[in-house]
Every structure is written in C-alpha cells, then in structure tokens.
C-alpha cells in the first residue's frame, strides 16, 4: 500500500467578551463574575414581554477598534439578525447576532510558526449577545447525574465579538499560536480580558483533513475547549482520529464533537436538539447600524502600536533576539515600562537582560505589577546604569532591586539598606571581611598552609565566602590577591 500524506485544515471561531461597563442591549453590568445568580438582570436582558434592545455604543466602538487592528474592511452599515432557537439559557429564544452584514469582513493576524511568520486570514468579525448559563444539580446539590437544572441569566446579554478565521491554520500548534496572538491583541487594545479559563475568550474549531493535492475534506466542529492546552490536545486528538478513519478507507461525518478534557477525547454530540434551523431574519427592533467615517477614524487613531508591530520594531531598533522581543512585547504594560525605563536613560542591552530576568521573575512572584509598577522608571534606569558602568555588581543590583520592592523605598535608601556602595568596596572593608572569613575558617586555613590544597579548591571556597559577604561588590582578582597575601604574608 502506498503511504498517503494528509493535510490538516483548521479554522477557528473565537468569541471574545468585550470590556464594556454594561451589557450589549441594556444597562446591566457586564461584569457578572461572582455575582449572586440572577442578580445582574433587568427586564430587557431577561427578555420580558414588551422590552426592547438599545445598542451599547461602547461595544460598537470596541468591535470597531478590533476590526481596525486586524485590518478588517469595516462596513458602514451593518445589521443585527435574530438567531432563533429554543434553549433555557436564551431568554428571548433568539440571540441577537449579526448574519449577512457583520461589522467587518476580512483582515489578518500574524502568528509565529516553526517556519517563521505566517498570516492567518480573518473572514469576518461580528457583534452578538451572550446567553445565560445552565447549572445542573441533583437534589442533594451534587452536579453529577443531575435531576434538575437552574438557569443564571447574569451573563445573558453580555457583549461578544465573534472572530472567524479563514481555514488557513495547518497544525494544532498554529491554532494555539493564533489564539495566543489574538489574546495578546485583545489585551493590548483593552478590548477584552481574553481569559479562556474564565470564559471571556472561547474558541470553537473546524477541522478537516484531506490527502495532499485533493479537495478539502469533511469538516468537524469541535467545541468545549476551555484552555489553550485543551485546544491543542483536542485538535491533536481529532487529527489522529480523522487520519485513522481516512487511512483505513472510512468517511468523516460532518458533525459537532465535544472535547472531554478528562478522558482526552472528542465525543460526538448528535442529538435532535442540535439539528437547528436558526431561521435568521433581520431584527425589526434594531435599525441598521450606521458607522460614521469620523467614528472609524477616531477608533483607528485610538489603536496603540500592535504587539507584532512592536516586536518588529524591537528586533530592528534594539537588535533584540527573537525570544527577547517576544518576551518584552508579551504584555503591553511590560513593553511600556521597558520603554519608559529606556527613555529615562538606561542602556538597552543590560536593561533588556534585566527586564527578561529580574522584572519577569518579580512579576511572577507577585512582587511587581506591570499595570502599576512599584519602581519608578528613573530608579531602575539609574540602577541599570550603575550596573552597566561597573559601579555595582550584578548581585548587589539584585539586592537593591529586591529591597526596593520589599520595602517600597527609593534607590538611595535601598542601596544603604542593602549595604551597597557605588564603586564597590574600599580596601579596608575588603581587608576586614577577608580577616573575618579567615578567622572563622581556621581549619581550612590550616590545611592550605599545610599544602593540602593542591587543586586550589579550598582557596576557591574561601573566595566564595568572601564574595558572598561582599555581596559581589568586590572584584574576584582583588579578593584572591588579598586572600593570598593574608594567608602567606
């Protein structure tokens, strides 16, 4: 049998919750996380008889901002449709969404792949409202094997944008990179939290496989992937499953499959209720959404330097490595802090090193917040400058940094607290430290003097102790000289 080569084709539909104050069509808060069930509702988002939707302007602005950022072709007139289906989490039994006239068509997003940069095309971007949430429970409150269901409408009506990609993603890894790029983008723009775990970013995938050179295969929709890892695993599983079917001569069924994260498999969800005819038609309660040239311009102007643009610039302007540029542009606030410190006079190279190690580490440890930097840019600039000019050692600089963070003090005070002085140690200070170390390690001294330190290990040990005491402020050759003269003199 001739071995065949299969090509994977993936398209993603990403729902992003917009960071507005209120819901898409009513004044209720769009921040529903943690609220008591059904406390964040009003007659409109509950779809009570007689209520009507009023479009949230901020949501439109954020959708436009996103469209501008991906280079979408913004539609001056777009329209809302009703997507009709029965489900208890849908208060009106229809979702207000956009259908044939979304807010924008087209655009693209660059992602990193093994072979370098690749652009993933965007088909469309549209606005729609979220549904509520079903909670299933048994009589004793357990959620497994439920006997009753409850509905919480706190989320109903929260604004979403749906971004549909072209089927141009070729691997699960690329799918992950695409979602990462999208997440970074929505965060840069302040459009969304972009958090998959809490559901402010949700990803559905369409995946098909075909033999190389052959037409596209039958696509399968995969849902219920609640993390980047789940997305990648689900697609990898689906790839394997489809390949096995195809290579054994089987056919793929067009269907929706749910990712079961615990079992690590996708499961078909062919049920009657899913065989929807949504009966889309224009929502007569909402007029055409007409976007003025002025508003589009205003939104375009509000867009910051995009993550990939920033990265290109860092690579070019600061000769950073790919990895460095990736790290420093991973969050807009981090990049902004970097640029501020740079503007305060820090030399680039040592600053980049400092950012990617110390700043990132402190951030991970929860000591340093990019959004609200504990250390002002001038202070870090000075510190990095001292380091670069050899006025203080790397270890001393780290000490000072930590003292500044822990005690929330300025640079001078931190240096004093850390016992760090500019230009390193004075000869007297070094001498007293060396004497102290020798005093405390007389046995070692004795062995050295007896000539037992043939490999020089013992003297290195003493040097280490002295260096630690001096917090790295002394130059190693000075320490060695001093040690030898003390030992032998």
């Amino acid at each position, binding site marked *: 049998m001739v071995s065949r080569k299969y090509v994977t084709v993936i398209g993603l539909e990403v729902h992003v919750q917009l960071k507005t104050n209120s819901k898409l069509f009513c004044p209720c808060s769009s921040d529903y996380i943690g609220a008591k069930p059904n406390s964040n509702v009003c007659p409109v988002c509950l779809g009570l008889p*007689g209520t009507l939707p009023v479009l949230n302007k901020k949501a439109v602005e954020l959708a436009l901002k996103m469209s501008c950022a991906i280079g979408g072709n913004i539609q001056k007139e777009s329209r809302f449709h009703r997507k009709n289906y029965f489900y208890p989490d849908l208060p009106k039994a*229809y979702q207000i969404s956009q259908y044939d006239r979304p807010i924008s068509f087209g655009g693209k997003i660059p992602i990193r792949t093994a072979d370098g940069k690749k652009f993933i095309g965007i088909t469309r971007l549209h606005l729609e409202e979220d549904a509520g949430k079903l909670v299933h429970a048994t009589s004793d409150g357990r959620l497994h094997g439920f006997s009753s269901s409850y509905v919480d409408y706190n989320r109903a009506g929260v604004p979403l944008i749906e971004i549909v990609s072209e089927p141009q993603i070729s691997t699960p890894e690329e799918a992950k990179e695409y979602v990462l790029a999208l997440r970074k983008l929505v965060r840069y723009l302040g459009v969304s939290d972009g958090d998959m775990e809490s559901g402010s970013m949700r990803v559905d995938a369409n995946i098909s496989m075909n033999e190389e050179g052959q037409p596209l295969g039958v696509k399968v929709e995969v849902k219920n992937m609640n993390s980047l890892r789940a997305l990648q695993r689900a697609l990898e599983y689906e790839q394997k499953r489809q390949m096995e079917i195809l290579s054994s001569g089987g056919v793929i069924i067009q269907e929706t499959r749910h990712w079961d994260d615990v079992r690590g498999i996708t499961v078909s969800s062919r049920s009657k209720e899913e065989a929807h005819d949504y009966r889309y038609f224009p929502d007569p309660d909402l007029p055409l959404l007409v976007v003025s040239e002025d508003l589009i311009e205003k939104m375009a102007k509000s867009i910051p330097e995009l993550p990939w643009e920033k990265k290109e610039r860092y690579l070019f302007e600061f000769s950073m490595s790919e990895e460095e540029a990736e790290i420093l542009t991973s969050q807009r606030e981090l990049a902004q802090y970097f640029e501020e410190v740079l503007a305060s006079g820090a030399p680039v190279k040592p600053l980049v090193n400092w950012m990617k190690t110390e700043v990132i580490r402190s951030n991970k440890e929860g000591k340093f917040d990019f959004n609200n930097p504990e250390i002002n840019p001038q202070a870090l600039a000075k510190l990095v400058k001292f380091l670069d000019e050899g006025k203080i050692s790397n270890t001393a600089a780290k000490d000072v940094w930590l003292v500044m963070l822990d005690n929330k003090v300025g640079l001078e005070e931190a240096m004093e607290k850390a016992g760090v002085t500019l230009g390193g140690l004075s000869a007297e200070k070094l001498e007293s430290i060396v004497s102290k170390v020798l005093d405390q390690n007389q046995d070692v001294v004795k062995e050295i003097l007896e000539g037992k330190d043939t490999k020089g290990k013992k003297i290195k040990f003493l040097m280490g102790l002295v260096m630690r005491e001096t917090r790295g402020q002394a130059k190693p050759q000075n320490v060695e000289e001093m040690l030898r003269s003390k030992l032998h003199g």
Partner: protein
Amino acid sequence: MSVRELSAREIAGLVKRGELKATEVVRAVFDEIKNNEKKLNALITIMEERALKRAELIDEKVAKGQWKEKALLGVPVVLKDNICVEGYPTTCGSKMLKKWISPYNAGIVDYLEEAGTILIGKSNMDEFAMGSSTEHSAFGPTSNPWDLERVPGGSSGGSAASVAAGYVPLAFGSDTGGSIRQPAAFCGVHGMKPTYGLVSRYGLVAFSSSLDQIGPFTRTVEDMALALDVIAKHDYRDSTCWTGNRPSYSEAILNANIKGMRVGVVRDFMEEGLDDELAQAVEKGLGILVENGAIPVDLNLGDIKECALPCYYIIAPAEASSNLARYDGVRYGLREDADNLLDQYIKTRGKGFGDEVKRRIMIGTFVLSSGYYDAYYLRGLKARKYVCEKFKEAFSNVDVIVMPSTPTPPFKKGELVGDPIQMYLSDIFTLPVNLAGLPGISVWMGLNSTGLPMAMQIIAPKWHEVRILKAAAKIEETIGACPLAPGGE
C-alpha cells in the same frame, strides 16, 4: 351632564378648575363599568383601588393649586392588555400570561401618568393581538356596545368598546394590521394608528415588531389630538422610535383649514368587496372635505389591495413566531411540567396558546425556514417595498387619501371564527397602511340603515398626523362627535 358624556378635554378642564373632583370621575367610571361589564366584557383587569388612590392624589394636588399644567388631569383611561403597567397583569388575552405581573411600566404609561390621567383598567383583546373580533381571547369575547350580538372588532376590541360605551373618553390600543382602526369603525369611535415610530413601543408586548404601533381611541378629534400630544414622544428605550420633533397636535387643529388640500380617493377600492353603505360613507366624507375647500383627486394604488394581505400574512407571522418564542414556561407565565425540556416546551405552548396564535406561529416558522425563506419571507419583503413605493407615488400628488376602514359593518359573533381568511379580509383596507408605516385614522361617519356604525379611513404620509387630524376635524364638524352607544347604558 353625566361624567360618561364628557370628553377628555372637558374632564381635564373641570378637574383643573376644581369643578369636578377626580374621585367623582373615578366613582362614576366604576359605576358605569359595574353596570355594563357583564354584557360587554370589555376589560380583563380592573384597577379600582389604584384609580381611587390616584384620584385622591389628584384632588389633593388641585386643592393646593398644583398640577394645573397637566393636559389630561383626572382623565380616566383604559389600556389594551398588551401594554405593561408595573405591578399589574399584562395578559395579552392569553392563558400563557394570565398570571404574569409586569415589573415595569410601558413608555406611554409613564407619559400618561405624567399628564395626569387615571388608569382604570386593562382591556380585552384577541390573544397577542392576533384577530379582528376580540373573540380570540382567553377571557371570552367582548360585545359591540351598538349591538351586543356583534363583535366590537379587534384586536383592540375592549378598548374601542370602553370608549363607545362611555366607560372612559380615552383608551389605547395597538395596531399591527388594523387593530385600532377596524374596532374603532365597528364601535363608532375615532381610532388612530400613528406613523410607525411616532409612539414608543417600549412596554407594548410585541406581536409584529415592524408593524405594531400604539394609538388612541376617542369620541372627539380634539381628544385625539390631545392624546397624541401626550404619547407622541421620543423614547430612547425604543430604538425604532423617531427622534424628530413632534408638533403640538392640539394647536395644529385649532381653526383647521383644509383649503387646497388634495384628497386622493382610490376608485378601485370602492368597487367590489365593499358594503354599499360604507362606500357611500366614503363618498360622503370626501364630499364634506371638498365642501371645505379640499381638491378631490382620483388615485390608482396599483395592486396593493391584492398583495397587502398575503404580504402581511408572511411578515407579521414571521416576526410573531420569533417574538412569541420566549413563552416557553422557563422564566414566567404558564408552565406545564414534564419529564424533559422538549416536552415542557410542547405542553406549555400547546396549552398556553389558542388556535389563532398557533396558526400564525406555524405560518411564521414555515416562512422563515431554510429552503422557504426566499420564496416567502424575501418575497414578502419585496411586496412590502412595492406597497411603500405605491403610497409614495400617490403622496407625490395628494396630501391625504380617503378610503374605507373596513369592507363590512360589524359582523355577528361566531360568524367568521371558523373562516380565518374571511376574518383576515376584514383588515383589507387597513393592512397596507401598516406595511407602509403610515398614519391612519378611522373616523366616525354615522350609523347605517340598520343602526350600525360606519366609518371612513384617512391616511397621510409619514409624520403628517396633523393633516389627518385637520381633515377629521372637518368631518366631525359636519357629522358630529361620536355618540355614546346604547349598549353601554
């Protein structure tokens, strides 16, 4: 003179001057209701306690010299039971919402209260405003106050009967295809459907969102203008509500002059399918206008009479099928428990809705279904456009158009219930006006040879209610204001 004979304007005047107490008005109204409601069944909910409290407040304010600026001070008002009043049921004439208490006020309820009215009750109607006889109500049929054997028309039959019988001088209904004008004609009162978008739909339970409009029933044209002054306001809660400035309708009809007004008459409409005496009534009305200086113009509206009915019975049910989908037993209203969700939907909706509503939901679901959408819904939209264009053409030559309100005088109860098509045909002259979003009035034209009310319809281009009111005022000068119906004694 008894209270029931007074117009809204007269009551407001007397109450403001302290010559009539609001509490006396309310007592008189409830006496009237108690005497006649058994035979008329015009009201679903009677709000006696609320009305008395409100009247006491008004009397208090008047005694202190306050509230004199309120245009409808002390005027008792009836609302169709699809207009929400906070704390009271809004049944829509359906079992489905029999026990549903609205937690909020409709836009017009706020406006009416602000103007000093006293809400008396909620009136009977065809279920969800679907019908032309008020026989399709879960609360039994309403009788025509001119002949208790006959229907009052519909779907706002209860409101029309309330005004005709002298319960109140002012009532409100909703008109989707003639549901104000047809019962007005049958009950011998004036009834107006304003331009789509002139009056807020917020709090009007939707039947067909792109056609529904709230309007008044009165016995004088002056009251009609006064009512419009109060309710025709821009309401941000209804995105389809017109933002333009409304004139003072009361001022506009003072010393109305219609000299030179071009009055179109559609000769095709006056031929087959129209009751002879009603045709004569239109001729008579036209004659009165001409005597007052208007210029008659013969018009051709193409095939709108032929295409309006099928067009309407595609668009209205399509929207209704979506608007009524929310009545699923999950959140409010009737719920029939079942073992699973699908059965709960089927049982709840099976029991909660009457036949006519079910009929229209099925038609609407069908015409929106994939595969039938183009053949029905899209063609319906095209036909609607045609109707709009024909009217536009016509209004380039004339200022108003006169035509019959209904093809027949009020029919007998039970006569058409088994024949939906004949029932639908009773709106043949009113439907096109809704499709084009135009304002139209049904104006009282006296009694026919068998003692039943006759009427004529006057329509105008969008936002030109003033023209209609001026013409109607001239008719009323000759024909007289609407008399009280004998059945209400």
